[in-house]
């Protein structure tokens, strides 16, 4: 099938991060600093992306502020004509650096929230003093006037803090809050016993969001990612695999989605060797699940196939062991029932410790199964 140009690009500038959230979406094998592509390569990638049709650039990580050339990269992306969103924990941003980012043309900031008080946030982020610092950064952001989205990541341990998170978004002057229930990819898969919300929590969050949306209409936009395993239909994958977005890893590999490396038979091209245009239109990883031709039943004959594109390939891989299978979250999947039972079992597991994300170059901690 012939693809249309992509709209968004996620640039994972680095895997380095002062925090070590146990649900980090980075791969278990983290890129080291000496593997990261350099400033000039990123600049070229931004220009190529704009030429390809990308409008929105998300600068992410790890913590993008860990890159010393962040301001220079923002400037280059803006010169290329991109709309730039910085996805950050706030750690590593000083007032001076924020002013420099402002001058360089940064359009929007998305600030992550690990918890609504220091006790929760610092425990989840694994970084003492992080919450206090984040609140300081939020004040600077507000003073400069950057448009802000607060990104609250929720799971069993902190879902009860959702009402307070919404209040905090208002206090910070955010125009938007993303209420994101943890999705089980990357490091989160290791922590399902501690992070899986209960069914009741998931329903309660639905109610809180519906109520707050009505109450705060025109004041605060609430985007909501509900608990996945407790749903009947899977989430739409990236707006369709290879149709709207692409990811570039710190080493320059180009992925159709951030978790695509968990599908072992896919091969990824690198911006160091191949032009972005060619990767998008001809790269085998992008062609693999583009459109609907790859599908088998039940998706193949399903009326929702262009709604959710069969759900998440990485989830099918992780849970069913077959990236071509229907997403096991789907009620039409033969694995749906088992997944719900499994979700409930994770949700009531007790006494497990969090397994924190490690640092680049450090070994991956063992999972206790």
């Amino acid at each position, binding site marked *: 099938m012939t693809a249309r*140009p992509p*709209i968004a690009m996620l640039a994972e500038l680095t895997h380095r991060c002062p925090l070590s959230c146990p649900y980090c979406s980075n791969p278990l094998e983290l890129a080291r600093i000496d593997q990261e592509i350099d400033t000039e390569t990123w600049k070229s990638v931004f220009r190529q992306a704009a*030429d*390809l*049709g990308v*409008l*929105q650039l998300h600068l992410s990580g790890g913590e993008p502020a860990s890159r010393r050339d962040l301001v220079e990269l923002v400037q280059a992306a803006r010169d290329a*004509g991109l*709309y730039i*969103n910085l996805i950050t924990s706030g750690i590593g941003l000083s007032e001076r650096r924020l002013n420099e980012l402002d001058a360089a043309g940064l*359009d*929007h900031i*998305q600030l992550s929230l690990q918890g609504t008080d220091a006790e929760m946030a610092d425990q989840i982020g694994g970084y003492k003093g992080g919450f206090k610092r984040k609140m300081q950064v939020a004040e600077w952001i507000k003073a400069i*006037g*950057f*448009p802000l*989205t607060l990104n609250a990541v929720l799971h069993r341990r902190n879902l009860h803090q959702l009402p307070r998170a919404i209040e905090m978004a208002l206090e910070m002057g955010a*125009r*938007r809050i993303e209420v994101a229930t943890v999705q089980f990819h990357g490091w989160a898969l290791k922590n399902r016993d501690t992070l899986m919300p209960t069914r009741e929590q998931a329903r309660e969050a639905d109610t809180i969001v519906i109520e707050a949306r009505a109450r705060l*209409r*025109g*004041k*605060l*936009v609430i*985007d909501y990612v509900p608990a996945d395993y407790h749903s009947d239909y899977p989430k739409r994958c990236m707006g369709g695999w290879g149709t709207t977005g692409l990811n570039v890893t710190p080493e320059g590999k180009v992925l159709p989605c951030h978790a695509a490396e968990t599908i072992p038979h896919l091969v990824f091209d690198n911006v160091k060797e191949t032009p972005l245009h060619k990767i998008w239109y001809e790269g085998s990883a992008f062609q693999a699940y583009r459109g609907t031709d790859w599908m088998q039943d039940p998706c193949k004959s399903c009326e929702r196939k262009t709604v959710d594109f069969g759900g998440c390939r990485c989830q099918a891989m992780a849970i069913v062991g077959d990236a071509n299978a229907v997403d096991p979250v789907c009620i039409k999947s033969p694995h749906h029932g088992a997944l719900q039972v499994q979700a409930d079992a994770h949700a009531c597991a007790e006494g497990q410790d969090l397994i924190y994300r490690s640092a680049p170059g450090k070994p991956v901690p063992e999972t206790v199964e």
Partner: protein
Amino acid sequence: MITADDIPFLPRGVRVHRDRVRDAWVLLAPERAITLDTIGHAILTEIDGQRSFGEITAALAAKYNAPAEDIAKDSAGFLGALRDRRFLEVQP
């Protein structure tokens, strides 16, 4: 609902952009890129944070030789949706 006296403006982080690859005008905003049709583009480029919605529709009516009420009616839904997403504000 936006009224004739409201003075609309695009807040920081929301801008009209020429999409040279798709040969179209788009509105860029946090997490969104909205393709603009002729009338949407015409209205958004008139919005300057100075003039009221009524003045803007009157100006467009003269320019396109169409009744101002029709322009106001056709664009109110679009502008209302932008306002709900906080892509458009009115002067306090």
